[in-house]
């Protein structure tokens, strides 16, 4: 478990990083927190000629409030995002989900940008981005471009990033005031990747009907899923058990899970329904409580 030889380039500026990627013509890999890439290197499953290390780019480590959105630099450590008061107030779903990422030591090293760029459908951060309609900002030789989360995740570990592009920031619209959030994640052990996770955010209107609901699912397809059909069933309805059950069924139907040694596909689909029901139950119980308060 020793990596094959590679050159290590510690980028001095973002431009330097992009230039190096261009020069290596697709054979370089970008190193952020290293929590996914380093094991792949050690097992020689990834054998890049060059590692472009973003560790020195302080300009990618920030959390900024521009009024309607939070913009988070790609090199911001997961733990810093999780503990940020700004994020907690504007995007409560994000820290609620990040608490399920590995263990604290992993979140101390791992970065938000790295996790999103890795595009693991079972990871939490990509699903948050789908639920909250985030935008991903990429920088390449042609400059910056913005990619909607809905377009970014294209397959298992496949994103819309070009080989010469670096994910530099994530821009997320602030959640509406009064939103409550819930994350229901099923793992075999604490800190493992989710077999399935359902992430939800919701608001009830004063009449007790569902004013807004956002649901996404990790681990149930080759990309993180947004459960649009289920959301459509829920909005404008009172959150009765029947409505919740119908939404759970809709979520399960929208999934396209793979099977592996930890669980067959049918089990994951079943979990998606169970976890959706539990997630919605928590959401609406909290929402009623916060509406009453």
């Amino acid at each position, binding site marked *: *478990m*020793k*990596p*094959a*030889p590679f050159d290590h380039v510690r980028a001095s500026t973002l431009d330097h990083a992009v230039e190096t990627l261009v020069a290596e013509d697709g054979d370089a890999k970008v190193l952020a927190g290293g929590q996914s890439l380093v*094991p792949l290197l050690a*097992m*020689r499953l990834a054998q890049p000629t060059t590692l472009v290390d973003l560790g020195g780019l302080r300009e990618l480590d920030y959390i900024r409030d521009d009024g309607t959105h939070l913009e988070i630099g790609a090199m911001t450590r997961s733990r810093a995002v999780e503990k940020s008061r700004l994020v907690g107030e504007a995007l409560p779903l994000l820290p609620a989900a990040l608490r399920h990422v590995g263990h604290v030591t992993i979140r101390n090293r791992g970065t938000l940008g790295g996790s999103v760029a890795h595009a693991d459908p079972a990871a939490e951060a990509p699903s948050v981005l789908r639920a909250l309609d985030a935008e991903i900002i990429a920088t390449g030789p042609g400059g910056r471009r913005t990619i909607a989360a809905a377009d970014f995740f294209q397959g298992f570990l496949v994103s819309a990033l070009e080989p010469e592009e670096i994910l530099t920031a994530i821009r997320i619209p602030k959640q509406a005031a009064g939103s409550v959030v819930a994350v229901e994640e*099923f793992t*075999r*052990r*604490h*800190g*493992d*990747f989710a*077999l399935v996770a359902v992430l939800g955010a919701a608001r009830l209107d004063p009449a007790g009907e569902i004013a807004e609901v956002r649901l996404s699912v990790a681990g149930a397809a080759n990309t993180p899923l947004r459960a649009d059909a289920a959301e459509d069933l829920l909005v404008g309805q009172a959150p009765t058990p029947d409505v919740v059950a119908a939404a759970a069924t809709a979520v399960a139907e929208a999934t396209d899970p793979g099977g592996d*040694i*930890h*669980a*067959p596909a049918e*089990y994951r689909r*079943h*979990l998606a329904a*169970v976890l959706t029901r539990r997630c919605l139950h928590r959401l609406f119980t909290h929402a009623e409580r916060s509406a009453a308060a």
Partner: protein
Amino acid sequence: MTQQEVPPGLIGARVRRKEDPRLLTGRAQFVDDVVLPGMLEAAVLRSPHPHARILSIDVSAALELPGVFAVLTGEDVRAACATPQPVVWRMIPDQRMTDQYALAVDKVRYVGQAVAVVAAVDRYVAEDALGLVEVEYEVLQPVVTLDDALAEGAPLLYEEWPDNVSCRQTIPKGDAAAAFAEADVVVTETLSYGRQMGTPLETRGAVMSWDPFTDQLEGWMSTQSPNLTRDLLGEVLGLPVDHIRVRTPHVGGGFGNKFDFYGEEVLAALLSKRTGRPVKVIEDRLESFVANAHSREQRIEVSVAAKSDGTIIGMRGTVWAVLGGQLATVGIGPCWLSMALMAGPYDIPNVEATVVGVVTNRSPYGSYRGWGQPKANFAHERIIDKLAHELGMPPNEVRRRNLIASDKFPYPSQVFFYDSGNYAECLDMAEQAVADRGWAKRRDAAAEEGRSLGIGYSFHIEISALGPSKIMNQAGLQHSSFDEEVVRIDSAGGVTVRTGLSAMGQGIETALAQVAAQTLGVPLDTVKVLHGDTETNPFTGYGTGASRGAALGGGALLRASTRLRDKVLRIAAHILEASAEDLEITDGVVTVKGTPGGPSVTMRQIGDAAYRRLDGKLPDGEDPTLEERDVLDPDNVAFSYGTTAVLAEVDRETGRVELLDYLLAHDCGTVINPMIVDGQIHGGATQGIGGALFEEIVYSPEGQPLTTTFMDYLIPTASEIPTFETLHMATTADHIPGGFKGMGEAGTIGAASAITAAIENAVPDLDLRLNRLPVTPPRLLDALTTATPKDPS
């Protein structure tokens, strides 16, 4: 039975472990910490195919890579070795042997089998070179599962054999056929125990240095069995053992894996001989999942014949051992033990049990803590539960009716004599503890809320203190199983114990120090325990396994220390002009009994009298120095036992099981250090929980291992285990000095049985029968969905 009474003192005291400051502050030395001048590092090329013929190997490109010093293939190894890799357990005399070398010679028979080895300036270059070794394979159809191996016309792993069966043996006791013919009720079950392995934090490793001028081989190895390793290295390499020195630094977890003797040690030795430099080989985690001994996987068919009152009159069973592509050091050993202990703690007059060893294209099957016993336990406890269900009796009533009564010891089982025990008392103790903790109330209150909690029990026995050497030899062991210990008091009164046992985190330094300190009457911190060097330390037969260290090492040391104490008292009597019988030693000071403040001699003065200023102090006729050795080759093994009780919650929507509470009532004779025993039991139980709920080595239908990282092979972590409670009772082993019994494997044995029973108990409305481990959430959900609802009447 005679109960041995050890006076209260350090034996039985919950003292802190002497080794822990070193281990916890990172100052302990492990094999990978050994760095020698000029040392090379090796890496092993492993087969990517489960079953293939090696047509050719071309190492020329690898040899040309700068930094590469040597490359060996199977032919090189065969030419350099006097024998194939040894199999030390040969219980079944006509077993077909697989006779493999450290590198595959003609065929590969599992993914991960070593094919070539490279020595280079460092591990990075060595791994680069592996990519340059060209191996041409003719891929053969793999034999992946037990059924594949037994199928009509199955491909043969060993073409000279008629089938894939390595061995078969049936051991009868009484007349099982008659018992089954006259039974009121017969229940049968087929059980599958998943493939698992021990996963010590420190993987295996060795540093070998072969002096080309003297043919002296010096090795640093992470092994539980230093003397066995030395003897086997001698056999394989054709070297006299006085040319071989095996040093074992701290072993970072053993779990039985490191009892076995692997090929990598041989390869490092041969590479060192070839290059004239020391060679280090450290297995990485990826390799460890295929190169380390696998264990546990069996299919077990078990039946009992009983009277309608629950009395079991007969048992039949067959253990189908899913061996790997070659025999490991312990051969059929663990699976044979599953067969030999299938009747467990029960007084069953008629037993007929069979073991069948079947080779498959999986990694070899070797030692793992529990060594056959968790499977035997799963067989007898599952069938007890099923019989109870059939008869409508509480399972513990069936247990009570059949447990061996305390006046029946020594009890002749199918194979062994169980030495001593109070089994029923142990079961009572656990039930009382469960009642005291209010588990039934918790279960019933949870049921009101729609939650599913259940209580499960199991009773286990554990063979320990292995064992009488000559009897073990008769049973097929190609080694001894006594233990030798040496204790010395130095010229300043300090005590040094020398042991051949390995320190692998189990606390042997502390346990032996407690025995020596109490026996000699000295403070614990004046006793030092040295281990880890075959050149200077005594011989332990077998190794630091089979739950024998504390029992046999402790027993031998107790006897040696007692004789040394006698000598101390003779010298003190001479100095004090008193009679030795009137003296006592407390805290390292010898005084005349009943004369507080009277004349005294310190251990320091005794040391001085025996080594330095002898005149007038050392009695005439007494040899200078203060040293004793003792060898304990016991008359019998010693059986520990315990009752496990588990409170579990089942999530009926997802199949998840959470363990809410866990206790073990346990008896290992005289307890040397209850804290160490608790820790051993908790650690073992954690591995047992792993086997019950989490851990499984999975192969694809094509024979590829799919669980080669800790992301996929799920060992329970602190978050998955409950708080453990251990309750002790002490029925001593009357044939072991001190009355000690071993307990290193206890926790692993009864875990799965109790957990599966608790799960079934949690869904009383369903006729749920769990017969496959591990019970993963998808499997349990499936079982819950397909189980028949119980007739409400």
